[in-house]
């Protein structure tokens, strides 16, 4: 079982990210579960969402405390939230940032596996909005697999309709441009 925690701010679509991956994984015949960190919805406040994907039936409904993967949609959260909390020793931190992986290591003293991508720039160029949740799915899939990139098509189409293509393109670019350091 792979457990993922998404960090975002209310309104940035962290919950949607977790949902879309879960839908794609279930379409592939895997078992998956996605849920938000429940609470009153507050735009801009730090939020987390959780995802579990497994080959077997998932029988656990508590929050994810020891994720295999942490996805950070908004780099400004790194200064106010310990995003790597509980991350497994072999886990990977996937960050939307304009900084290089060396800078991230230096600024945050993070020693583990790291994947970085400038999702803000990609999202602005491809979709003209600074919303990175679908873009970051490309980075997540590149860094950790979980689902096939093409499995995202159906959930993205269903969710975004005529703007799905732009989301897919941004996701593809993030997949291509993500830099992973062990």
């Amino acid at each position, binding site marked *: 079982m792979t457990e993922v925690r998404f960090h975002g701010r209310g309104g940035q679509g962290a919950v949607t990210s*977790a*949902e879309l991956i*879960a*839908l794609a*994984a*279930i*379409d592939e015949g895997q*078992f*998956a*579960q*996605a*849920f*938000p960190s*429940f*609470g*009153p919805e507050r735009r801009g406040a730090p939020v987390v969402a959780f995802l579990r994907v497994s080959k077997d039936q*998932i*029988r*656990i*409904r*508590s*929050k994810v*405390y020891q994720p295999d993967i942490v996805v950070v949609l908004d780099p400004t959260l790194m200064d106010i939230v310990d995003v790597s909390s509980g991350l497994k020793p072999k886990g990977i931190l996937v960050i939307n940032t304009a900084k290089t992986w060396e800078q991230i290591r230096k600024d945050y003293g993070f020693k583990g596996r790291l994947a970085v991508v400038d999702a803000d720039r990609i999202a602005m160029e491809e979709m003209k909005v600074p919303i990175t949740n679908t873009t970051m799915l490309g980075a997540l899939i590149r860094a950790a697999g979980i689902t096939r990139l093409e499995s995202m098509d159906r*959930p993205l189409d269903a969710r975004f309709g005529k703007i799905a293509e732009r989301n897919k393109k941004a996701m593809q670019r993030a997949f291509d441009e993500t830099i992973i350091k062990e």
Partner: protein
Amino acid sequence: MPIQKGMEVSIAVSEAVKLANVDVISAYPITPQTHIVEHLSELVADGELKAAFIPVESEHSALSAAVGAAAVGARAYTATSSQGLALMHEIMFVASSMRIPLVMTVVNRALSAPINIWNDLSDIMAQRDCGWVQLFAINGQEAVDLTLQAFKIAEDPRVLLPVAVNLDGFVLSHVIEPIELPDQEAVDRFLPVFKPTLRLDPDQPVSMGAFGSPEVFIEVKKQVEEALIGSQKVAAEVWKDFGDIFGRTYKPVESYKAKGAEILLVTMGSITETAMTAVDSMREKGRKVGLIHIRLWRPFPFKEFFQAIREAKCLAVVDRALVPGGVGGPVGLEIKSALFEKKERPYVAEFVAGLGGRDLTVEVFAEMAAKAERYAKTQKEMRYEMIGVREK
């Protein structure tokens, strides 16, 4: 053949209500029930479900309108949570004693104060004695299946009582997971059109909900009680039919790795699955731990419960509501009372946990099982223990 699709449990429940082809939905939105009724109102507005959606001004009215709709022979549905359910309280009794078959989803949430929108079972447990059939889902698939079954149980001429289908707020209602939605054709075969036994009809006028003097009141209560107790037999038949058509079996009390278990966790609702994972890991370590979960809470399935625990030396009952000033929680209270008639009975360790959305992890279930085992060894005298309370 239907296949499993990923969807939010709340959406799946509203799709089940659509498959049940309801005539009237009356509801007032309250977190965390909202997604269910929002989706239903969309289905009605889009013409996908031919039903009347009555947006009311309070939950008291929501249930009243559903009672009225069912009284004229409509298949009626409502849903609520927490304070909303509390506001329905007086109509809860009216619905059962008037023998109104309707279905309500209760998306379980704590009762204020302090204001809390998260999950526990204190809302439905405060309605324990309202004369409703009460079912608990442990996952999204069960929430869908129980919703369909609920209509069939409620509308059976031998029952004619309202049914509450409980699912945990947020931790179940807001989760995306694989769910199989049955075909409409199969649902229609399982759940025929509602044929009311008695209804308000201008051509054959009757009065429903009239006065009942002391000369008849007890007889009416006896009738409701017998119908509620009898609903278990009907539920068993409904579950048989459901299994034949959809291939999923349901029982009033379910066991998990209970064979050879000396300690049994006793759970209700979606915490059951996390508890199962705890049982798996304890079993791997050679501990004789199993689990039972109670699906049919009202009427309480005494026979099946005794059968399920017959090998156990110790029960670790996990309550998610408190009976303040009493022996612990409502489930523990029920079980201890039920066991009193037995000469040989297991030790009962009663825990109250997870109130107001406190997360219940695999480790917490393992902790409760271990404590129960320890307390049983010394036959520790305990009423109950509240789990996870900070002492300093």
